[in-house]
């Protein structure tokens, strides 16, 4: 079965995030005074075959440990959803009814 993993990679606590700081400054200048903090990370969508959700999660977490995140400075979090062929048409990365990566054939 085809699954979609959403991977978020963020800098560990305590590690300075210059990109986040720059965005805070820019948002402030644009008038968003309510913003308290911005942290910038990476986001990946991975479409993969797996038996079940736990199986998919285990594989993706392994990919994160080996390649997708650098454990010295980064944390990661993985969400697994079934690929929804219908939603794949939508294009926007919704929160539910997740499009399968981008629905693009390879």
């Amino acid at each position: 079965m085809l699954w979609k993993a959403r991977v978020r990679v963020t800098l560990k606590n305590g590690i300075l995030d210059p990109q986040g700081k720059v965005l805070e400054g820019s948002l402030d200048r644009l008038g968003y005074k309510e913003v308290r903090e911005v942290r910038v990370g990476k986001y990946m969508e991975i479409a993969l075959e797996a038996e079940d959700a736990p199986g998919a999660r285990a594989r993706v977490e392994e990919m994160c440990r080996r390649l997708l995140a650098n454990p010295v400075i980064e944390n990661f979090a993985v969400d697994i959803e079934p690929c929804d062929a219908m939603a794949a048409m939508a294009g926007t990365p919704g929160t539910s009814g997740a499009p399968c990566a981008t629905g693009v054939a390879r």
Partner: protein
Amino acid sequence: MQDAPWREMGLKDHEYERIVEIMGREPTYTELGMFSAMWSEHCGYKHSKSTLKLFPTKSERVLQGPGENAGIVDIGGGMALVMKMESHNHPSAIEPYQGAATGIGGILRDIFTMGARPVALLDSLRFGDLSNDKVKYLFDGVVSGIAGYGNCIGVPTVAGEVYFEEPYTRNPLVNVMCVGIMKTSEIARGVAAGVGNAVMVIGSKTGRDGIHGATFASVELDERSEERRPAVQVGDPFTEKLLVEACLEIIRSGYVVGIQDMGAAGLTSSTVEMAARAGTGMEIELSLVPRREEGMTPYEIMLSESQERMVAVVEPDKVDKVREIFARWGLDAVVVGHVTGDGLMRVKENGKVVAEIPAKILAEAPVYNPEARRPARIDELHAFDPATLPEPQDYDEVLMELISSPSIASKEWVYEQYDYMVRTNTAIVPGVADAAVLRVKELGTPGHEVGIALTVDCQGRYCYLDPYQGAAIAVAEASRNLACVGAEPLAITDCLNFGNPEKPEMFWEFQESVKGMADACRKLGIPVISGNVSFYNEAEGVAIYPTPVVGMAGLLPDVGLTVTQGFKTEGDLIVLLGATGPDMGGSDYLKVIHGVVAGRPPRLDLEAESRVQACCRDAARRGLLSSAHDCAEGGLAVALTESCISGGVGAHIALRDSDMRHDFLLFSESQGRIVVSLPEKNLGELEGLARHHGVPFEVIGRVGGARLVMRVVEGAGNSDPAGPGRFQMRRLIDLGLRELERAWRTSIARHMTDGESGSI
């Protein structure tokens, strides 16, 4: 077919009628798309072709003039230099990072497609006023896009220019130039020769990105432009790096008959142009083209401008070898068709013909001779008399303001983002001299290699006031920049940026500029070997300044003898070569200090210009000079400031009085002037050279101290200008080097940090 689909594609009704007439039938949708791309201004040069014929394009050194992907000149020793410049203005206005990045990707492909290894990039940039937030966003994005692509692919960006002027606010100019080096024996061309040979598509897969980019470049920007997102592509410098290596390998191996990159109009233009050049035809099968997306129509495949793709024509028995080489670099190389003898460009999808057009007809867009009309503004602007302006009280203040204006200030903020040293050939890095210099490792001896000098120049404001004169000055300035490092001009590549040529005033600007450039090229003996025209640079009816950018390459027999712009040694004499006149029209002094853009641009005496340049070059080659720097924006005072800052040493200047106002004396932008410094013992020899060349020569001061002090000697002709004055001296400028340097060096960074754009 819906109502007049050709209009949506940018074709005129009469052009459509002509297509029907030639074809003897209505074109299919795919055929119409192919026509509209090939007959767009961008690919077809409809409005510019006849004017461009004015350029001189030959010299003993020219191996390839305009007409191929790039021009080539012989630099001796069996080696050649390849060069080309191109615009990516509209994509950069919409998506500055990717727009600029893919501009770099495209110009690189034009070079390695000829078989040359790209060795240098240059960028010529124009934006609106830097205090505008949108301008900052564009400027920041464009510079990081150039850096992102150029650095990643490992080609140094060694020189460029940046101007900030209001007319470029909505329509910035992003012109990029690439230079390559190759053996003359390895020149490859974009020809589809040899009936039966295989046609291969190489590199990235084809997606829906950039469909109709050529058309997009051929219309004015409007509020809908941001919605034309398919016209924006994402660059992949990593894939292109692999493509460079693999293509150079197949060209050297002799396996390819012809090769061409897929630029504007993608598969259509590359196949059609290759067939047309060879007088052959081609048949391709679209189902064989590797695709990134499902369900692409023939129209989309033929017009996609996905980046990092090439077309190669290969003898059938070499196909496997070519495939092998590409596989080693991790790239696709797929046979999609073959060369035919019938002159037809035939496109099939699953065996069914979807387009069939004579290649020649597609490749030869209709040629127009639009109406030209001198704009009314010219006379009004020329009527302005700078002498009516008040003379400033405090020249220190004026100089500080001038050197802090972003167009004059240091461009360090820009070029420090570029890797300008990779490949270890850059002998003169940005900010050190008027032109970049690269050694050619293959020629000369270690430490004394043959050098190539590179520069890009154009002052759009001059062209706005007088396009003929402004364009001629661009050529003269580029050549002068080369003379300052001691190099001899080899050839020009250009990028001619103008508004809508269908408007007579705009077309006049274009015509005048080409005439000005052509005349200057003839006079200075420099051929134009490649270039690019970018029309429709208008946003909401406001056109840019006419901006014919000149990219020039020159040759130095020995990089060890290169001269830089910084003053070097305390006690050296400072000499001005060339004469100063009241050339205030279009100057930075007028614009920055008085807020005026008017007058006539500086006079240009090409005879005098050529003599000054020859004199400087001779002096450099004889090793007489410690420094040389041309007087450009901001005139003599700014040139001296830059030489002081670059060298980290001050200067004492005493100018002979003339009947000119002191502000004119300091800030006039008279052409044909070079500030040199030299040890006193060389003075006689330099003076002899100046006399020999008939060049005005004036000792104006001495290098030393930590201040720039400029005085004017009032009274009779003086005999010892550098010494303590026996005459009445009026001090005009007295500024510490640190203060000058801080203002000049940090200006752009200061603009960029307040109200930072913060894009990520």
